């Protein structure tokens, strides 16, 4: 603990206490929803209506507005989970454990979306639903990583041990992330190389780029909302007998 200033540590301790977090989540969620809609609606309008059709791909490229943000999220959430796993292991922070395990189903959801939308995009573009190239296959493996984390957590009855186990697994599994990300550069594949994420000079038109970035933002906010909801459930499950839950129930009744 000594490497962290006392004030920061106190803040974490307070936020990390379950009832405080539970109340805080309730407070934040409405604002997050507003922000989500502010990003989503212009994003969808810009992407589906305003942006011109691609000169090569026609309208099918509009799948990009969900495929790419979802694929990004699938990687981003896993990295976040690994970080939270590290925090949970080093500082024994319960809240990090809860956030980690709550992220798994959402990450799996985004991975699934990336796979399905990619497949649906691949049919008109490449003429096939699926090719066994490095990026596609490794994204499929990422789905298994997410499912493995959820399965391991479910299999261990003592939830404290389960959270430790999952933290270790999340940290170890993070080695696959660079493989997925760089697969297009390491192996020549059918899949698009980095077009958007080359930040210095994105090779995509600005009218297509802006909705894409809006959608990416919307998905991030969505993640925040969903993970808070799931974390609330997880906290309740883990601390069903705690005093603060009893108080909560009494206030409701």
């Amino acid at each position, binding site marked *: 603990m000594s490497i962290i200033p006392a004030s920061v540590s106190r803040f974490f301790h307070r936020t990390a206490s379950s009832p405080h977090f539970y109340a805080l989540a309730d407070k934040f969620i409405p604002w997050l929803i507003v922000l989500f809609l502010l990003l989503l609606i212009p994003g969808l309008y810009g992407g589906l209506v305003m942006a011109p059709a691609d000169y090569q791909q026609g309208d099918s490229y509009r799948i990009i507005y969900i495929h790419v943000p979802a694929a990004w999220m699938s990687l981003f959430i896993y990295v976040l989970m690994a970080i939270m796993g590290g925090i949970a292991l080093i500082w024994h922070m319960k809240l990090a454990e809860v956030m980690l395990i709550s992220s798994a189903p959402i990450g799996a959801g985004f991975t699934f979306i990336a796979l399905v939308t990619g497949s649906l995009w691949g049919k008109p573009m490449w003429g096939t*639903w699926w*090719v*066994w190239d490095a990026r596609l296959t490794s994204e*499929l493996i990422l789905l*298994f990583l997410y499912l493995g984390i959820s*399965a391991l957590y*479910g299999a261990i009855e003592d939830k404290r041990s389960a959270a430790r186990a999952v933290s270790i697994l999340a940290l170890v599994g993070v080695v696959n992330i660079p493989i997925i990300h760089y697969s297009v550069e390491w192996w020549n594949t059918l899949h698009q190389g980095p077009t958007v994420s080359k930040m210095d000079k994105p090779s995509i038109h600005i009218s297509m780029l802006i909705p894409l970035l809006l959608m990416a933002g919307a998905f991030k906010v969505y993640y925040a909302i969903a993970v808070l909801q799931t974390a609330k459930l997880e906290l309740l499950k883990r601390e069903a007998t705690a005093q603060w839950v009893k108080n909560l129930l009494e206030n409701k009744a």
Partner: protein
Amino acid sequence: MSLTQAFLAIIRRDLLLAFRRRAEMANPLLFFVMVVTLFPLAVGAQPNLLQAMAPGVIWVSALLAALLSLDSLFRSDFDDGSLEQLLLSPHSLPVLVLGKIVAHWLVTGLPLLLVAPLLALFLGLPERAMPTLWLTLLLATPMLSLIGAIGVALTVGLRRGGMLLSLLVLPLYIPVLIFASSAVDRAASGLPVTAQINILLAMLLLALVLTPLPTAAALKMSVN
């Protein structure tokens, strides 16, 4: 209650249990998908090769997935004493055991039927072979459960039964594998497959009648 009612009650209970343990239930399916996925990674993205391998890969993977799912057939019943209660039932044990096998197949075999065509499509198996693939899976996966049940029943009392189980069961699976995969192979080349299908059907009927008896006997031995 009557024997039929007991039979149905077992199926109903095991399906309910599978539903309550959803996460575990998905494992054989995931394993199947994962093993199939390993091959393209191992041979590289060579569509023609993958297409030629497809029937073999799908079938070997299905076989291994069935093999590894077998343990769950009697394990939890053995651990929590339900198996003892089953043996003490006045009803015919082979019939009750058949109930368990049917439920097991519904939970582990049937899902393979649903995803296998998808994976076959991804591997590039020609579409005209799909019905045959599906039919062979339909006929052969119950056989995998039926034959495997004997092996699990023999090893359920042992702690380190896993490997032993594979050694016992795999040789028994070989005939199924040969006929099923050759049927798919022929279908992919547009040849008739009636003979193979008929043989599989006959084998299935035989297995349905003959395997519950040794399984029941082996269970009795394991519970001692």
